[in-house]
């Protein structure tokens, strides 16, 4: 049994692509924050890769089996944050294991798992009863995170659940209806935003109005990107980065550093890697044998795609400033760990697909 447990090699294609991407990220990180940050990030990547490796050893049926427990567990952690968060300063830092992990991060995986679990045995597209159950599962998770309050994560977490519903084959009429409803509810949503969130949206629409704070960040980021040109200014040669004009170089704005120093060519390489990873994951999802595996792999991939889009859009001034890191490139432990864990689920599905046929 123990021997078998360590015999599943994660999908080499995906693994190589992920390592290329993270290696590329470390090169940029060196320029943004120096060797100390690179060393620390390398340790986190190593941790994340071992997590990926171990998760690969677990049969996907086990995830399926334990999904309700994982989901209820993460909801309980959210509730705990909700109750203790008032008295304990820093409600977000729930689990401090050297790297702080927020329960809301856990939801980014456990929520799509739960929705996929709800749909696991029913005929697809699911009927309204299953859709209602899925909506409740999404609503509880997203609602609790919204109350923290963390609107951005709440929207992303609901998106991860909604992607499962989309992949489950729900009719296009519903999707169109949902989109129209969403557009119409924007003014209502505006009422629920906190003052600082409205500020950020307004700044996004008119960054020049606030050249010292959020607007300043975006202006400086655009200058960094634009001045990079096609080939870039060269590694560690970016004046915006090195002279400290660019905010938060190593975390949310690391793509600005990449754009400045490696130019449009560097951006093309990055997106090429991202596209290949997404393609490979979609392929694994399509090959998967059970409904649960398919839906989960597909949704996790789509969420990965959404992160890339939000971050790349934000720093180039086409989306409002929301604190979303660039997946597997930005400096930071939590995001790397959750992402590699979710890739672990995907590689597990890939490694165990043959056994299911037997």
């Amino acid at each position: 049994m123990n021997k078998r447990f360590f015999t599943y090699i994660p999908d080499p294609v995906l693994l190589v692509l992920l390592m290329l991407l993270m290696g590329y990220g470390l090169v940029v990180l060196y320029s943004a924050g120096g060797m100390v940050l690179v060393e620390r990030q390398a340790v986190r990547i190593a941790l994340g890769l071992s997590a990926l490796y171990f998760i690969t050893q677990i049969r996907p049926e086990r995830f399926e089996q334990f999904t309700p427990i994982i989901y209820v567990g993460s909801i309980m952690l959210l509730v705990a944050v909700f109750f203790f968060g008032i008295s304990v300063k820093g409600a977000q830092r729930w689990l401090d294991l050297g790297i702080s992990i927020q329960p809301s991060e856990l939801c980014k995986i456990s929520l799509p798992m739960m929705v996929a679990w709800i749909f696991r045995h029913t005929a697809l597209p699911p009927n309204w009863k299953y859709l209602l159950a899925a909506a409740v599962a999404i609503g509880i998770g997203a609602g609790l995170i919204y109350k923290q309050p963390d609107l951005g994560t709440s929207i992303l977490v609901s998106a991860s659940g909604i992607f499962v519903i989309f992949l489950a084959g729900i009719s296009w009429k519903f999707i169109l209806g949902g989109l129209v409803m969403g557009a119409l509810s924007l003014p209502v949503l505006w009422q629920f935003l906190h003052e600082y969130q409205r500020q950020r949206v307004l700044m996004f629409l008119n960054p020049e109005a606030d050249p010292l704070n959020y607007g300043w960040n975006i202006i400086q980021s655009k200058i960094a990107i634009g001045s990079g040109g096609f080939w870039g200014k060269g590694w560690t040669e970016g004046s915006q980065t090195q002279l400290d004009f660019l905010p938060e170089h190593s975390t949310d704005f690391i793509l600005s550093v990449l754009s400045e120093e490696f130019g449009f060519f560097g951006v093309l390489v990055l997106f090429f890697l991202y596209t290949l990873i997404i393609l490979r994951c979609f392929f694994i999802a399509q090959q998967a044998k059970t409904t649960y595996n398919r839906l989960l792999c597909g949704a996790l991939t789509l969420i990965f795609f959404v992160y890339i889009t939000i971050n790349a859009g934000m720093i180039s001034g086409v989306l409002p400033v929301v604190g979303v890191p660039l997946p597997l490139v930005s400096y930071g432990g939590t995001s790397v760990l959750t992402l590699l864990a979710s890739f672990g689920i995907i590689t597990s599905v890939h490694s165990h697909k043959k056994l299911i046929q037997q």
Partner: protein
Amino acid sequence: MGRVLKQPFQEKKLFTERIIVSLIAVLVTFTLLLGRYFYLQVLQHDKYAAEADQNRIKYSRINPTRGLIYDRNGLLLAENITTYRLEVIPEQAKNLSKKLLALKNLIGIDDEAISEINEQLKYNPVFKPLTIKPKLTEQEVSQFVVQKHQFPGFEIKPYLIRKYLYPIELSHLIGYVGKISEAEYDRQDHSIYAKDDYFGKTGLEKYYEHQLHGIPGQLVTEINAQGKQLSETINTPPVNGTHLDLTIDMQLQKAAYRAFGEETGAAIAVNPNTGEILAMVSKPGYDTNEFINGISQTNYNELANSTEKPLFDRSIKGGYEPGSTIKPYIALAGLYHQLITPESTMFSNGYFQIPNQARRYHDWKQGGHGQVDLINSLAESVNVFFYDLAYRLGIDNIHDFLKPFKFGQLTNIDVAGEKQGILPSRTWKQANRDMIWFPGETVITGIGQGYFVITPVQMAQALSILASKGQINPLHLVKKEHTTSALPFAIQPHHWQVVHDGLTAVINAPNGTARAIKEDDYLIAGKSGTSQVFGKSEEDIYKKNEELPKHLRNHALFIAFAPIEQPEIAVVVVAEHGASGTKAAAPIAKSIITAFMQEHPTLTATNNE
């Protein structure tokens, strides 16, 4: 629930279709995003390249200078002085850990500090300066400067640091500043506070933090394309913190601290006509200057574990029974409720009994005081008189009468950390002890014992109301327009007078308990009290205070005001474990009043006629 049968092939087809749609969405989105980057990096490149080239303006903060603190006569109590700290920018330093060891002898940092620096280095961004030692002596500065070429990346930086000129005498009152904590920073306006600011941690520094801090200005630095600084201009100048003018008289404060000698405790002197606090001491004090850049663990432990509890601010946090110092207020309550008159007398035979109960409540004098009136009851501190009066008043009347005097209430004095204490009542006991009130508890309330927990500042507020015959002048430490209000009940002038007369007799009558501190030049009124210390063993209870170890002796209390015709100073003294109010606390009160009178000779002159 009837389950619809799955149709695997159809479902797989449906899923594949969705994956293809998703893939198209990904490709379209990425193409649009790349289009945006292409637009910025290729089409608009010239524009942004020019902007980056011209990007030479950086904004930084100019720290405001913290407001100074003066005493009532303009004497400087807290200032800011220039100090030097050693910083390092980790990415510019070579062989950092070796260099740190080399610094050990040069500027005197110990292993504990080095391991702490190594810990901080893990979390410090490499381009951000990290403080190696916050406070360098002149000698250390010159020693380092000579060797500086060996330490690239290390820099000596001047900065302003708080300095307290009377740290021991004013340690609790002024308090101290320290580096702002993460939790404190989170709650502040980030346009005003920076992460390395100083922040008031205790006392006035905490209470008046926002006035003292000031508003930072903005510095505009122009740099060239290589990052070299070309010019510096002040965009907006900082608004320095406001100075605080205290009501404290530093001479009196020092005298009060000195008056304690070896004793520990608290003393507060106020002007009853204005509520201005002239002196407020909690002894022992400690050196607040040590706390500004973080005190070493050894020194802190020494302070924190000291049996004398120097860190504890007794003046606003110390809770004591008022003991016999409550008697003048009980007398006033009796007069107000017409249970006694200024002329009432009673016979003290040595003990009081509640009708139909066996327990005896004793006088402090064996055999009693004989026939006594109100004035003599105060002068001799006759317990039986007040047992009887309290019993007849009842706990509700006592509670309602004492409350506006601020016993067991926050006085809202302008310093951080005041504790509320306890004014006993039926409701309090029900809520906190879950028991009904017993009549015997009313009896001992009459001599200030039982559930009372009263702070010295509350006693001072009450005494100020008593001395000014009913004016409520809220106590304060920073000069301001004072507001006077009246008690919610009107007490007749001759009632105030008889209580004043009784307190005058305490010191000036031949039978007064505190006749030892009688003054010839002017008349002082006062009252002693004893605050019981609990935790004695069975056998210790019957010992005399002098036979007990110091920490089990009772606390000594004394309240006093002078001159009696028009009181200008009211003093509350708590001498911890002083055993006897008249022996331990009264002399301290006396020397505070003497110091005050020597400063204001005109006050004594009127009485010499």
